[in-house]
């Protein structure tokens, strides 16, 4: 579906959809805090517009915001996301440890975060590793002994 949307619009549209869903959640929740959905919509619109404008910049950030990143910029983004995930896992572990020490009842969200991160990592290994490739391409599986590298 995203291919039908102009690259520069993809991230702003994603932000707008996420913000609209979050604002709708506040409306569905109802009660005296229904009005929170209004600032959510305003903040979402402002963020979507700022990402659209950034998408026109001739910078790495602009290329990522405009969904036109080349291989280096995609690698930078990938490493940044891996770092963010590592930090989230460390923070979740620290939170879980604190919750256990304090005998608090709010330990389980940290377990959920750690479980999702662990599952995501295993999913990544099974998706991107060579394990699911054709065994015929593997010397070891094909019964051929791997030769040691030749010294120059």
């Amino acid at each position, binding site marked *: 579906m995203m291919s039908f949307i102009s690259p520069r619009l993809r991230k702003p549209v994603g932000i707008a959809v996420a913000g609209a869903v979050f604002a709708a959640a506040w409306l569905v929740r109802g009660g005296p805090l229904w009005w929170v959905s209004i600032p959510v919509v305003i903040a979402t619109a402002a963020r979507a517009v700022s990402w659209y404008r950034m998408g026109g910049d*001739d*910078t*790495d950030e602009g*290329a990522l915001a405009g969904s036109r*990143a*080349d*291989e*280096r*910029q995609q690698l930078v983004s990938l490493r940044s996301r891996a770092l963010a995930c590592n930090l989230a896992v460390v923070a979740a572990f620290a939170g879980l440890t604190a919750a256990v020490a304090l005998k608090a009842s709010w330990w389980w969200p940290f377990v959920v975060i750690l479980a999702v991160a662990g599952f995501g990592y295993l999913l990544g290994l099974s998706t991107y590793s060579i394990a699911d490739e054709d065994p015929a391409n593997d010397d070891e599986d094909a019964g051929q002994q791997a030769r040691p590298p030749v010294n120059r």
Partner: protein
Amino acid sequence: MRNRVREQRTQRGLSQAELAAALGVSRQTVISIEGGRYLPSLPLAFAIARFFDLTVDKMFDPDGEEAGA
């Protein structure tokens, strides 16, 4: 790893933006490759070498030290 991208580009009187457009990458990536801060993928290395009518091993020297590295 030393490379001859900047040398070849300036010899041909090209700007970094022109080379980037020809290779289909960003100007920032050309700057990073020239500065030795980014090693291009094999397809991009071949594209660079082909663009300058050189072989990959003439374009990129794995034994060479980047100036200032």
